[in-house]
């Protein structure tokens, strides 16, 4: 059996990588911008979902001056969130000159705040808040 020739393996690997890179470049999605807006909106609403619960009960929170309560009328809750934080709320040029990138836009727009009065439900159990990110 002839000895293995590393050069041929390297050439083969380079060819496979070139073909893969070409394939990736060729099959880009034209709807990428819209997909990113939708994903960002889903992230935002996922964060607000977790803001709206404490343990297995729902709690009120405020967003853009309005008070939201998932437990009262879930359909109205999501209708309002779609209006305020649907995909159109995350235009891709929103932070064009920011050193913080778009991630902090998401964090700022999707954290909500405590209502001015006490919550309508009492808390009996608690679970961890949504995971704090690191970027480390």
């Amino acid at each position, binding site marked *: 059996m002839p000895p293995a020739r590393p050069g041929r393996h390297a050439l083969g690997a380079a060819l496979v990588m070139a073909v893969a890179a070409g394939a990736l470049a060729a099959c880009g999605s034209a709807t990428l911008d819209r997909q*990113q807006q939708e994903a960002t909106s889903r992230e935002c609403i996922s964060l607000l979902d977790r803001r709206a619960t404490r343990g297995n009960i729902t709690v009120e929170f405020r967003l853009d001056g309005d008070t939201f309560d998932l437990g009262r009328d879930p359909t109205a809750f999501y209708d309002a969130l779609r209006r305020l934080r649907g995909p159109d709320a995350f235009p891709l040029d929103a932070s064009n000159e920011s050193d913080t990138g778009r991630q902090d836009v998401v964090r700022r727009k999707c954290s909500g705040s405590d209502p001015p009065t006490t919550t309508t439900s009492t808390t009996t159990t608690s679970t961890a808040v949504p995971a704090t990110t690191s970027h480390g």
Partner: protein
Amino acid sequence: MAERTTRRWLDIAVPVALVLGTAASRLPRLSRPDAFVFDEVYYALDAGDIVRRGVERGGVVHPPVSKWLIAGGIRAFGFTAFGWRAAALVCGCLVVLFTYLAARQIVAGHLLPALAGGLVALDGISFTTGRVAMIDVFVAVFVTAAMWFVLMAFRDPTNTRRVTLCQWGVAVSLGLGIATKWNAAFVLGACLVFFLLLHARTAAGERQGRALLKTIVILTVVPAAIYVATYSVWMLKIDKTWIAIQDCKQEQHCSYSIADRFLLLRDDQVRIYDFQRGLKSDNNSNAALAYEWATQNRPSTLFRKTCVPGFEAAPSDLSDHSCDGAAAGDITEIVAVANPVVWFAGLASGVLLLFWAVFRRNVTAMLLLAFLAVQWGPWLLDPISPWKLQDRYAYSFYITPIIPVLALMTTAVLARPAFKWVRPVIAAATVAAFVFYWPIWVGKPMSPDQIQARHYWEAY
């Protein structure tokens, strides 16, 4: 003849089966949650910017390679949860493959190397980071590849051609590794020392001098060149970077010569360094001090949500779908915590290897312990090290590149005839633990009691 044919067939079948098995175990629920998990909010959006504009927009604190890889997945599959996680899935499988190949350099046959790969595939840290668009799995793939090349070189140090090729492999792998996360530089430093010691032992006279010089050049110039090369697009599209936009606004200096571009790159690297120096996470319950990694007692929760009936009203396009199929009160969580069998067997093996390294001068033991030390040590020494003068809390997923080292340590120990009977025990216990803990690695909704039963780190 028949035996050789079987062996050649196994040479292909075993790694292919490992990679396919790893992919198959990680694919279910890969798109759940259909929202960003932990730091995906940074890296997926940065990768989206790279696809669209060639460079990230701002707030960048790590070099670009991992984001280029994530961008490849987004380019192929769209800006969807599957798209931004696809590269992590592929690289997670490659980590398993490289661990298998590294194990083949230190133990005979296919079974034990397959066990090494299996330990990585079924570990919780490897599993969770191999399914999310964060950077640690990409560091792991380059560091594990480098480890494979080092072990291959030390298998036959007299084969100068192979040693040289392995040096090139290490240089390229770790050049890309450092261009993913700077921590890989510690591994590169260790590899440089390994190869210098290898040449000091095997060559003599003028030949030794040449070999040492060549090693130094390959393992310093090549990684540095690769690192700078990974910034080539950044330098070409510098007008779209935040640092240049600010420069343009403040200095009214908006046209950049090649020298200007290198100066801005230097400024950007200083900015990243300053960010990392100043990063403290001591107010973050998800982080731990590095010595706490040993007991896994403060793992990072990457995602957690308690499912309430109201979530069912969420329209499909707005829902993250993490609670689909859940009962009221169920919890879905993804925790980057190690498979306890893989982790503690690895640490116990490390103790044995320390004994072999000290008293038997076993080179494989020394190499594996060194790989462990250079990846864990900097975090442990952080409070007194020159690069950081304060406590730096760290996240459990930072140990992703350490898991293959632990798997190789376990394999090296199990290769001894005295431990032959332990092999099936470790294999069976690893699989059983994987099945049991799988729900908290993929975010499968379960009752609070079932979730609590899986928090083994809270038992001590």
